[in-house]
């Protein structure tokens, strides 16, 4: 995607509000399960259905996860923070207010580094706060609508960025980076399709060089990384066209319609709610002792940026490889484990990014589910190194390992894939090939050297690919010279 969607004269200004569902076992204010996909309203109780007289009780794990996220994004953690009520009426909001954080969020002022084709860039994090999710309205045919409150009261973290992004590509990179970090620290599964990661965008357009921001439009309903970029692209174009046509930009909320590929006005600023925030009297303020912050900081895993740098400096991997391998923590761990068993880093990287990823992607499986273990790959690579199998045969072996879970050695033995380095066997194979193609031999000897490849192919065919390529090459050259 082009980075100057706004054209030569204009510049887009984008800030994102990302909602991340936390991977706690129970909801934020009650003991109900957070498992996805249960029958409607089967995971509810007096608290998360807003029964009269029920009260919220803070899930400490949710607080810790939010602090963890804040620390992973370089935020300062507020020693004192509190919850607030955001008041509005909607059927999926059983109390008539959402318990959120307002003037005193848990985390403030952080940053995330993204990388696009234009290089690295730091995106500021304004704040990260904790809140409860709403339920879901279900509209079916007929005069009724239904409400499913299973999702109501799920712990949700809102990560608000500074308006630091200038293109849909940057927004996309930011979203992916957030996802990577959240998954690294194990607080959110980052699944946009299932809604555990959601994104709203604030976007405006201004003439290049202008300091003041243009009129801001809020975009909602973008439930994939691609849609975030598409919706922004559409919206930026729409705003630029409007400005060029002398039409005003209205401050409004617009919905992304993924089927039509357009954004549509949902409500104007005048229709915006007055949420009447005030401190939640049913919860005590959250005080975070320095010790807790220290403890959570120490529990943080190596974060992607640091891991990536280390992969480059310690393993000598190209930036691209390091980037790919560290995007998901389990992949990075798989890679390192294999390297620790003595395999060459770049070779492991090639196999992981190539064959392994191809096979995993084919069935949509995560690397943790791979039937090939780091141990198994390391053993297979050792077979290549000691000349038992060729790199070419190795692909067949790896495929078989992935399918059956058998070790490489066994497959090589069972299928008789051991490389032919034995001079006698090679010689007879080459002699047979040469005898079968006398005219090609003549032409080669007459100077048509490009025919060499033909002979290599024939030898490989004759040996079912098991010929040691280097040895076969040497011998072919000698024999063909006559």
């Amino acid at each position: 995607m082009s980075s100057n969607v706004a054209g030569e004269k204009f510049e887009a200004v984008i800030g994102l509000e990302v909602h991340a569902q936390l991977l706690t076992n129970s909801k934020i204010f009650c003991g109900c399960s957070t498992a996805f996909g249960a029958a409607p309203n089967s995971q509810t109780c007096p608290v998360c259905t807003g029964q009269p007289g029920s009260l919220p009780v803070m899930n400490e794990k949710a607080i810790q996860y939010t602090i963890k996220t804040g620390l992973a994004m370089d935020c300062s953690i507020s020693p004192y923070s509190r919850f607030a009520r955001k008041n509005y009426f909607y059927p999926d909001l059983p109390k008539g207010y959402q318990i959120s954080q307002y003037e005193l969020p848990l985390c403030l002022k952080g940053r995330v580094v993204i990388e696009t084709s234009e290089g690295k860039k730091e995106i500021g994090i304004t704040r990260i706060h904790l809140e409860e999710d709403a339920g879901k309205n279900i509209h079916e045919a007929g005069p009724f609508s239904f409400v499913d409150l299973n999702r109501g009261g799920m712990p949700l973290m809102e990560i608000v960025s500074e308006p630091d992004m200038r293109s849909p590509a940057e927004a996309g990179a930011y979203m992916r980076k957030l996802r990577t970090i959240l998954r690294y620290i194990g607080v959110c599964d980052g699944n946009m399709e299932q809604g555990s990661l959601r994104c709203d965008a604030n976007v405006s357009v201004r003439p290049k060089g202008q300091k003041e921001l243009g009129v801001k439009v809020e975009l909602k309903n973008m439930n994939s990384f691609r849609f975030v970029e598409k919706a922004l692209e559409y919206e930026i174009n729409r705003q630029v066209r409007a400005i060029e046509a002398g039409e005003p930009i209205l401050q409004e909320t617009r919905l992304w319609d993924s089927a039509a590929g357009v954004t549509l006005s949902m409500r104007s600023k005048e229709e915006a709610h007055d949420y009447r925030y005030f401190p939640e009297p049913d919860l005590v303020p959250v005080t975070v002792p320095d010790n807790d912050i220290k403890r959570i900081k120490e529990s943080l895993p190596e974060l992607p940026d640091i891991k990536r740098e280390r992969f480059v400096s310690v393993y000598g991997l190209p930036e691209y490889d390091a980037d790919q391998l560290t995007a998901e923590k389990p992949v990075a761990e798989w890679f390192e484990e294999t390297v620790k068993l003595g395999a060459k880093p770049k070779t492991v990287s090639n196999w992981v990014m190539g064959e392994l990823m191809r096979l995993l992607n084919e069935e949509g499986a995560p690397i943790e589910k791979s039937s090939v273990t780091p141990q198994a790959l390391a053993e297979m690579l050792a077979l290549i190194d000691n000349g038992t199998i060729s790199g070419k045969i190795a692909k067949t072996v790896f495929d078989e390992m992935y399918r059956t879970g058998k070790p490489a050695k066994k497959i090589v033995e069972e299928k008789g894939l051991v490389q032919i380095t034995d001079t006698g066997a090679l010689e007879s194979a080459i002699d047979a090939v040469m005898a079968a193609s006398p005219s090609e031999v003549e032409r080669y000897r007459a100077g048509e050297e490009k025919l060499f490849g033909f002979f290599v192919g024939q030898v490989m065919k004759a040996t079912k690919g098991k010929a040691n390529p280097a040895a076969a090459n040497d011998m072919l050259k000698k024999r063909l010279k006559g």
Partner: protein
Amino acid sequence: MEIFDLTIEELRLRISRKEVSAAEALDSVLSRIDKVEGRIKAYNTLTPEKARGMLAEADEKAPLYGIPLAIKDNMCTRGVRTTCSSKMLENFVPVYESTVTSKLIKAGYVLVGKTNLDEFAMGSSTENSAFKTTSNPWDTERIPGGSSGGSAAAVAAGQCVGALGSDTGGSIRQPAALCGVVGLKPTYGRVSRYGLVAFASSLDQIGPITKTVKDTAILMNAISGRDPMDSTSAPIPVPDFEAAAGKDIKGIKVGIPKEYFIEGMDPEVDTAVREAIKKLESLGAIPVEISLPNTQYAIATYYVLATSEASSNLARYDGVKYGFRAEGRDLLDMYMQTRSRGFGPEVKRRIMLGTYALSAGYYEAYYGKAQQVRTLIKRDFDNALKEVDVIATPTSPTAAFKMGEKTADPLQMYLSDIFTISINLAGVPAISLPCGFTKSGLPIGLQLIGGHFDEEGIIKAAYAYEQSTGWHKRRPAL
């Protein structure tokens, strides 16, 4: 003396000695209800069947075994309609039990019924109930006070042996005073609010309404303590309140705030309370004049904060999940019809006040400012209670007023709580107990205020005073 006339203390003793069976006690109370409820109208719901079932299941060794109690109709009782005296919840049956009633069940109590209140506990007379106005047992033409008027009247009329009320700005103490019984609002956080239908969350507390101070202490023992279901309940050990009743009060300092003896107060109330303070002095207490300088701002502060919280707390009554629903053309219309028709005028007035106070552009001037003043009021009490052990004031500026007397003027009604409201803002505990009667035979209440989590201090002083008088032995003629 009939069984229904007994105190919890006395009945408990007789049941344990097998002089009275728990079933006889229940029957006595139920037949008393039969006799007087038509005139008192204390109950929204009577639960005789439930009571018998509870009795069958209760542990005879439990501390409140067989004690028939009434519960204000804003505390959730599983399977028993909990209406808040509102059309909105007229047919609402909770699926869960509030913490206080769970504790009482464990203690072996028997639920007689759910008592009337001002709708959602908003009022000082029970006249804001959507269903009925409860009568004061001492004069059935008069109101019993509110909002826990049903509980106070039921206790005074012998329609239960004790009761629970809730107090947001005086809703336990003022009706207790007006009905000639004892009522205690505990320190905020002493008793769990889980299952109490919220009016103003930062002010609401559940407490006992009983015939004597000792009975209040007994119920406090049963309902107090940290509750994991209520984050605002305090992790502070619960002392034996019953043991506090009977301790010597020699040398305790009783603060008398000059701001509480004001012009316009009923002279009979003024006299009775001054007499009570003299009585305390004769028992060895030392009166000390004190000042609570921010008292004059209490009502305004209270009505900003309480209505703000209420406007949010009552948002859940939207016709979607439970309670009353009016049909509407669309969702918005359904909301508006439901809330317009489901709530009574006082509730709507407070929702509007609170919504306004929290609105963008007004928040700082109203809610923000009120929070600051609340801090000052709290500081007044903290400072005063460094100098004195308890503070003595009237509970209500007047004795029970006539039905309809103040309904036309909400501000007049709000002033009924002028002596009780500050205590909720400060979060400290206070007890009201009888300290005399007007010439026309209406009870007058003395309020004793204590430091944070020092219910023992006020129970001790109240008990000493009570035992030196005979007020608590008087019963209304019904």
